[in-house]
């Protein structure tokens, strides 16, 4: 008998037993690289955007942002008593996200967009996939994997949104009043990220939970990029 190691051919991926934070750091690095290829973010970095581009981005984000507190609340309702602390964290987080879209809507109107049109909008295909996946994950019993989604989405808010806000302000000469949504997330999500890190490094995250978190983070990273890439593709 020969062992599979000596035979040329496909080798399925092996479990990664590095620490969870190190694994998530790799996920983040890869996510950042993917974001750099997103057309609207490339244009933003190059200073080649118009107010219509900013409106387009807000319009597309809004359709999925309104679902944020919904899937977090659903996840909260699926944590049993053994996961009471995660339920608490999710409930508070859902409450914080609950009014998030109102900031975005204010910005959209402040740059000349129509609130009616914004609210009548539909999710683009990336948002559809992202939202559908999040509701699916959140519907499972004890959906610990959702922490991976939060890692990506909160990280985006804490590390990227503020930079985008400032860049849109620089390029288009926008007032603070027109970039609330992105600017707010820089502070709010930095706080959320701190809370999340404490949970991710706690004893309760076993190997299976870590795998679920990393996988969810990787899927969400890809779907988020898809949401940003497929603007107006409904």
């Amino acid at each position: 008998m020969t062992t599979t190691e000596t035979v040329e051919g496909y080798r399925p991926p092996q479990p990664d037993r590095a620490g969870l934070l190190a694994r998530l750091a790799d996920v983040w690095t890869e996510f950042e690289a993917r974001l750099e290829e997103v057309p609207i973010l490339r244009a933003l970095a190059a200073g080649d955007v118009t107010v219509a581009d900013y409106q387009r981005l807000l319009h597309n984000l809004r359709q999925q942002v309104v679902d944020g507190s919904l899937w977090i609340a659903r996840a909260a309702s699926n944590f049993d008593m053994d996961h009471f602390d995660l339920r608490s964290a999710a409930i508070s987080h859902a409450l914080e996200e609950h009014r998030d879209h109102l900031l975005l809507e204010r910005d959209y109107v402040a740059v000349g967009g129509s609130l009616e049109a914004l609210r009548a909008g539909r999710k683009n295909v990336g948002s559809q996939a992202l939202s559908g996946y999040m509701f699916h994950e959140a519907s499972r019993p004890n959906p610990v994997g959702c922490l991976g989604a939060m890692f990506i989405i909160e990280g985006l808010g804490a590390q990227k949104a503020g930079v985008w806000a400032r860049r849109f302000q620089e390029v288009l000469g926008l007032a603070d009043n027109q970039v609330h949504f992105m600017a707010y997330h820089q502070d709010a999500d930095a706080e959320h990220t701190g809370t999340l890190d404490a949970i991710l490094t706690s004893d309760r995250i076993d190997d299976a939970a870590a795998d679920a978190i990393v996988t969810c983070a990787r899927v969400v990273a890809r779907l988020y990029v898809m949401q940003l890439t497929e603007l107006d593709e409904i």
Partner: protein
Amino acid sequence: MWLNNPMSATAYLTGLGRYLPGEPVSNDDVARRLGGVDRRTDGLRARVQRANGIRQRYYALDDEGRTTELNEELAVHAIEDALTDRGITASDLGMLACATTQGDLLVPGFASMVHGRLGGGPMQVLTASGVCASSIAALDAAVSKVRLGEHPRAAVVGSELSSRWLHQRRFEGVEDHLDAHFLRWMLSDGAGAAIVEFQPRPDRPSLRVDWIRQVSLAHEHEVCMRAGLDGPTAVAGRTWQDYDDVATAEKAGLLQIRQETAVLDELAAAGLAQFEELVDRGLVDLKKLDHVLCHYSTNAFRDLVFDALSARIPGMDTSRWFSNLETCGNTGAASIFIALEEAWRTGRFAPGETILLAVPESGRFSFGFAHLTVVEPRRSTT
């Protein structure tokens, strides 16, 4: 007052409009509209007209002395002209700032009436009352709110219907005041409007608002241009609202617009000192100032101001100076917008050029200035 930082939120004038009621009225026909054809009045009129240099003007007043349009209608026509120039509608506006010396009504505010007539959606309204420089106060308010990101678009209008105050019926049987004739044969009706936006317009150049400054020197001057006041100082019991009835106040001349002409030289000197301060503070770069649009009541001040500016501005000549006082008349708070509109429409401005708007107000010595730069549309290269 603020100095624009190119990295910060900015406001742009993206559309301009004006409305001058009826047909132009030549100097000889002015008395036919306003009345007052006795020999003494004729002599006063000829003298005032010679001095102010106005060749024609407009009145919302027919030959019988009846008002043909409301002040708020003039304002709405000018705003609609500016909206058309920009290619948007009143429903796109988030704010309406109106400047006038005297609205049609005592209550409510002029801007509420203009909004009611204009239509559009819910919007912020502001009435800047005063005289000529209220135009700059209204512009400042709209520009500030747009820069704060509170409204993507606003309209500003300066509008005047002074002919009602100048007609013979305001003079007959009224105590004679020589100082009421100066403005009687100078002021006329009209409206000018501008659209203010947080982005330059995409299809044509816009006027970036670099800064606005409005300053009052009332702390060291008595009233100069006034109505409703008996004598040079406001005293309780002696304003037009304190008389036993309004008719008595009118008989005493309190419903005439009067001008203390003796202090007008002082006003010009104070205005030039304000201009020097702008230069001193670096708000105006004399080497880069391409156009000066100054509101003045008479050509006598034009020469005075022009000579003073020529001494300070290298290469200052008449091509950089624009006024349409002679053809549009002195329309008070509307004048600066009516001048800007014509200069803009007739292609005087090229991208990169700078414009100084200057509006001295004799009322009680106040001054409004605005600095603009012509900018190209923001284009995406994708």
